[in-house]
């Protein structure tokens, strides 16, 4: 497969939208990390330090969830859509 060499630098607009695509790629990684975080919190059993309860974890998880949904929603409208196809004639 010989591909045409792509230009080294692109216009600012294209650059921005590509970085948005990068952000879209990064979001699930961030989400995974955030969702795994509670595992590092103090478990209930051992020490006498204040233990973590279900309610706190629940609130945390839902907060992260809402954040991820919001971020995904914003990104989904900002990443490039030039290469997508659909049955609608509308183009942008």
């Amino acid at each position, binding site marked *: 497969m010989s591909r045409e060499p792509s230009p080294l630098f692109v216009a600012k607009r294209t650059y921005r939208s590509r970085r948005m695509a990068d952000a879209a790629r990064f979001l699930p990684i961030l989400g995974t990390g955030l969702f795994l975080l509670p595992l590092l919190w103090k478990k209930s059993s051992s020490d006498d330090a204040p*233990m973590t309860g279900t*309610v706190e974890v629940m609130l945390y998880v839902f907060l992260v969830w809402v954040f991820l949904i919001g971020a995904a929603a914003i990104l989904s409208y900002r990443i490039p859509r030039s290469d997508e196809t659909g049955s609608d004639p509308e183009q942008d």
Partner: protein
Amino acid sequence: MATLNILILASLLYVVLLFAVAFAADSAAQRGRGRWLGSPLVYTLSLSIYCTAWTFYGAVGFAARSGLEFVTIYLGPTLVMIGWWWTLRKMVRVGRSQRITSIADLISSRFGKSNALAVFVTVLAVVGTTPYIALQLQSVTLSYAAFAEFGATGEAEINHSLTAFWVAAGLALFTIIFGTRNLDANERHHGLVMAIAIEAVVKLFALLAVGVFVVWGLAGGLETTLARIEASEIARWEVPGSRWVGLTLLSAAAFICLPRMFQVMVVENDDERHLRTASWAFPAYLMLMSLFVVPIAAVGLDLMPQGSNPDLFVLTLPLSEGRDGLAILSFLGGFSSATSMVIVAAIALSTMVSNHVVMPVWLRMTGGSAMISGDVRLVAMRARRLSIAVILFLGYLYFRLSGGGTALAAIGLISFVGVAQFLPALLGGLFWRGANRKGALAGLATGFAIWAFCLFLPSFGPFALMPQTVLDQGLMGISWLRPQALFGTDGLSPVVHAFMWSLSLNTLVFFVVSIFSFPQPVERLQGAQFVNVFEHSTTAGGWRGGKAQSEDLLIMSQRIMGAGEAQALFSSAAKAQGIDGYLPEPTPDFLSELERAMAGSVGAATAHAMIGQIVGRATVSVEDLMAVADETAQIMEYSSELEAKTEEQERTARQLRQVNEKLTQISVQKDAFLSQISHELRTPMTSIRAFSEILRDSADMNEKEQNRYASIIHDEAIRLTRLLDDLLDLSVLENAQIMLNMQQATLAELLDRSEVAAGMAEGAMVMIRDPEAEDIELYTDTDRLAQVFINLMSNARKYCDAEAPELRIVAHVMGTEVTIDFMDNGTGIPADKQGTIFEKFARVSETKAGGAGLGLAISREIMARLGGSIQYLPGQTGAAFRVTLPLGVEKAVEAAQ
């Protein structure tokens, strides 16, 4: 009991509503008014079939047992959806550009369109999904029974299996009606998707309503609810890390691999942009679905009596508080979750079963005649409908056999682990060009073997399918092979344990086998197309046509779609192009349309390949084409045709040579005849002249001498006359100027007469005849036929050179013909003369004096006039002639009338 009746009424009304919605959406789409049907919202809602009854009811039960762990089932899909740019985008693009109809189709298509792989995936998908369908049936019956319990006043007990049976039957009906409306698997089932979207709204609304009721109605507000959670058994955060990670991964994998998810996400997708919206909207849906799960579980544990099933808290909490309306709504929510999952799963599986199992078998059994008959459509449709019924029946059967107990409740995650085995092959196929068919097969087989051994078989409980000793001590007593502690990995929950081992070994085997084996060309081609899908297809598989012949396309599509539909499609396309009444131009648009239409009958890949064959774009390998169009058979047919033609030409050449030989001989004969005829004519003329001169010149001649000379002259004159008569006779016959004098006679009479006339009695020749066989009624010109017989007999008498000459006459009736064979015991006619004996002036031997060689020629002409023939029969003991004559009975009857 009144509640129960209202419940039944409400469910029936709800089902009627779903039917109506599906029907309305379908007909709106048909009239082309259904733009809103294809909105991103409907797409997102259709994804909600991920939330089955198991999650609707079971999530609360899950939470009541192990706290926040339930949320992992939703976190996995959330991460997958948010990460759509990585995986789902590619999957949907590949699905659209390759016109994929199911996950089995995707995997087989990627790995060289291997049907073996497709069958394997199909079987595994059926095995993995059937218990899940059973689970849905169980949830409906359980929730129904819960209603009955609360409303029961000691009345008739609910028959669980009967309820399950009717639910299964109803679902089969709905799925068959709206899921197989159009055969084309790539076409969207608008009605069905709409119904599922409605169900998605209903189940979300129901769960939220119950949640709101529990939090603000029962618990008395947000603060107190949280306090209740703190006070409940599930207040502590003690989820094992392995389960938290493992279940999140597992649900993420299952979300991608579940056949039903693939169906709504990829197959039913008709605009890639919908995925963009769903990437955040669907996680939001999941978040809302799980929002009230923990509160409901905590309040349920608090309020409900000890030992009540936490799986049904969503239903029993409102019921116990006397909120029947809310309970019915909740029941409908659970019912929606169950039915939408079952419907889509049945469609996805039936597409796989019919496309990858039934159709190939059927095509093989009918020997490819389907290419001509055009009844492929009907068969595929029936196969799909039958598969739906069979799959639902299997689900019902599983429900009956498993007894609907806790074993079934655990099957949700077990089923997830089963389908997650597709993941390495799927992702490997999408991202790694080195992945090949052998690797995929080996990996899948390994993964499923481990899944069955570690999770599926033990799930039926000890002693059912796996003895307890194997569970405790391992396979064949090897402790490393304990199903739930493989290689000594104790301390993991069975599901996470099985998931980890099956998937990692699956991946390992897939990778290793792929590295050390070599793919076929088709695999490499498909691999490049899949992995580099974004570089290869900016538009979804558009045709760059031009070379295609519209006529060829029409012929081909008629065979596949049936004549009527194909012609309708072509004429509408022609109309759209503004050339009404003609064949449409093969524009890329038209070709895509045609391919989509054909994909419904023969599967997408096949349709693509067949058009590719005519259009001539070589994106499909030769091997593929051969399999599809059975090109080998065509080539063989063509070459055998050629062979036949060559043979025919050879035969013609042989005939020409024979004719040429005959002509040369005839020419020689003509020369011979001329000298012969002049000799024949001259000999009598010479003697006539000589003797007439003697009579004229010698005066002193006695009367006796005069008489002798005069009679010599007379005899010679008669001989001349006879010769001339024969010649005249022949020319009359040849010019067809004779009048036939048709009359009735038996063959025996004719032969008797001829025998006398030929003077057979005088010679030494013995006649062998069979009077019984000769008793055949003939209606013909008896005089002429006798002439032929006389000729044959006298020839035999004259030319038979045997010491004890004999002539055998054999008569046969063959159908409407009679054959009379004249066979003597002489040396026969030499082979080089056989071709010319029926020619004029032909003489077999110069030695024996005879006639002028006109007898057989005359006979042949006579037989031709009588509608029969005379042939020389080679290979007999002596000279043999066969006279063939029509019986002419009908003509006799006509004449008699």
